């Protein structure tokens, strides 16, 4: 990292966005980290350091703010799904599902059972891929390049499965109002079981090289401790919250789709430090694999049936139904684009890989949303930088940043 003290000859007009500092008092320096920094980018943290100790930290977000809330007010309801997907494209199904469910709530419909299972299927595939992505970025932050290479290589297994299921590597736009866009292809569940077996084996390898690595333990243990009370007070969410000892998961506390029929547990750790958050994510992957196994069993037992709600499917032309029976592909009718949603408000939450995402949706009865408010997991976790980072050394900052699994496009929306 290049650090330049302002005032050096010749660099007066060059302000490095990477990392530079200036003296703001006796023994107190202000260091600007980002938005160009060695880990995953788009986020700036302004820290004030006394020697090597951070005394104050201020996250400067918004480098990827693309104004989704405002843009959705000018577009048809269904066009907002691909828009919101861009928040976290590697976690696309989890991010858009609560929005779809909120609109379904306003319409007063529910997806058919098979569509619910398919949504859970893609949600869990996305969740595992997103956790692996987080591990990879964490590896980059800690300078552990093997931990970048391995999870990114294994993530391709899950990305490939998602591509087979939906047709796109990342931006699936899979759940739509009333159902999903595609049924599972032939032979999908066999490959899924193979991937589950492979992932279980690989997690053992990760444990050997990363989780139980003495260097990693030395850097992560007792770093970035979020006490239980503070975690609740700050309203942080997801694996970070559960690693601090709070048993809260939207899939259990406010079950959606078929999560209340599936058998899985919510792992909880009490320590609340960066190392516990790593363990938390490993345990969450194991639980997701458990869910996927049950979904695969269910899909094997049940033959193909319509995956769209009756309201949209009964008006579909016979050709569409034939295409669905043959290829499993749902063609959406034009009614989707001009649909008017009844007046009202709905609030819906979902558990993404990084935590809880919530949508406040308000309709005035038109064909466009009146107001949509999104609050994503990373945006809630951003408070950690302000309240947890002070008191740590500068070298602990990448460890905390990586362990929070912060994804800036999701936070900035």
């Amino acid at each position, binding site marked *: 990292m290049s650090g330049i003290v302002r005032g050096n000859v010749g660099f007066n007009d060059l302000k490095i966005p990477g990392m530079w500092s200036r003296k703001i008092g006796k023994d107190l320096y202000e260091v600007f980290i980002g938005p160009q920094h060695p880990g995953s980018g788009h986020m700036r943290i302004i820290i004030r350091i006394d020697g090597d100790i951070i005394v104050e930290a201020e996250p400067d*977000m*918004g480098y990827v703010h693309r*104004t989704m809330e405002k*843009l959705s007010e000018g577009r048809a309801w269904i066009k907002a799904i691909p828009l919101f997907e861009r928040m976290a494209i590697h976690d696309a199904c989890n991010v858009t599902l609560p929005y779809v469910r909120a609109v379904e*709530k306003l319409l007063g419909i529910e997806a058919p059972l098979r569509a619910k299972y398919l949504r859970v299927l893609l949600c869990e595939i996305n969740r595992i891929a997103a956790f692996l992505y987080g591990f990879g970025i964490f590896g980059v932050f800690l300078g552990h390049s093997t931990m970048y290479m391995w999870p990114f290589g294994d993530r391709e297994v899950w990305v490939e499965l998602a591509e087979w299921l939906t047709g796109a590597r990342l931006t699936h736009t899979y759940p739509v109002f009333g159902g999903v866009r595609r049924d599972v292809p032939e032979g999908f569940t066999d490959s899924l079981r193979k991937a589950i077996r492979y992932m279980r084996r690989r997690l053992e390898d990760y444990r050997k090289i990363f989780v139980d690595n003495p260097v990693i333990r030395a850097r992560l243990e007792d770093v970035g401790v979020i006490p239980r009370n503070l975690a609740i007070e700050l309203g942080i969410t997801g694996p970070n919250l559960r690693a601090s000892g709070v048993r809260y998961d939207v899939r259990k506390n406010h079950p959606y789709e078929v999560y209340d029929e599936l058998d899985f547990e919510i792992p909880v750790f009490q320590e609340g430090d960066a190392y516990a958050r790593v363990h938390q994510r490993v345990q969450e992957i194991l639980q997701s694999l458990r869910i996927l196994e049950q979904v695969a069993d269910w899909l094997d037992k049940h033959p193909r049936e319509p995956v769209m709600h009756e309201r949209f499917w009964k008006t579909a032309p016979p050709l569409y139904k034939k295409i669905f029976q043959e290829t499993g592909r749902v063609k959406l009718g034009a009614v989707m684009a001009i649909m008017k949603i009844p007046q009202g*408000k709905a609030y819906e939450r979902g558990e993404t890989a990084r935590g809880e995402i919530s949508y406040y949706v308000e309709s005035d009865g038109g064909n466009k949303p009146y107001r949509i408010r999104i609050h994503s997991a990373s945006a809630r976790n951003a*408070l950690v930088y302000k309240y947890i980072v002070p008191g740590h050394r500068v070298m602990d900052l990448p460890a905390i940043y990586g362990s929070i699994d912060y994804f800036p496009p999701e936070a900035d929306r």
Partner: protein
Amino acid sequence: MEPQEVVDLVRRVLGDMVRDVKIWKGNDYIEVEIDASSIREAAARMKEAGFDHVKDVTAVDYMKEGRFRIIYNLSSYNNFDLSYYIVGLAYDIPRDKPETVSLADIYTSAEFQEREVYEGFGIIFKGHPDLKPLLLSPPVAEQKPLRKDFIVREEPEIKVEKKR
């Protein structure tokens, strides 16, 4: 816990501050309308009652009626029964005088989100520890983009400066 029980709980906690309670579709979102003047008292009592964090803070611009509605969506981490529900603590402020009080010292989780409402709608939260734009750069935040009279054109806006 049934939605009606939560409504009863809220009525018991807030007393006569409650103007109107509405359970929206899905039976898990309860909107509680209160007076703008009693928001701090209401928030403090709700926190005592177990709603320990803010899920999100938002504002809705009703331009025709000349008001902003500010909503604090509260929920609970500690209480399993309450965590199923979201209670939206809502109040109206006039559109031509967008000023209200901050709840950042009661709910720390609302701190950044009030900044977001500030930059989007230009609503000033008095008593906020550090009120400045969160996501937008200051020139863009001055336009108050989330208000309904800021219209996003359907055609792209490309400014091409003359080549030097």
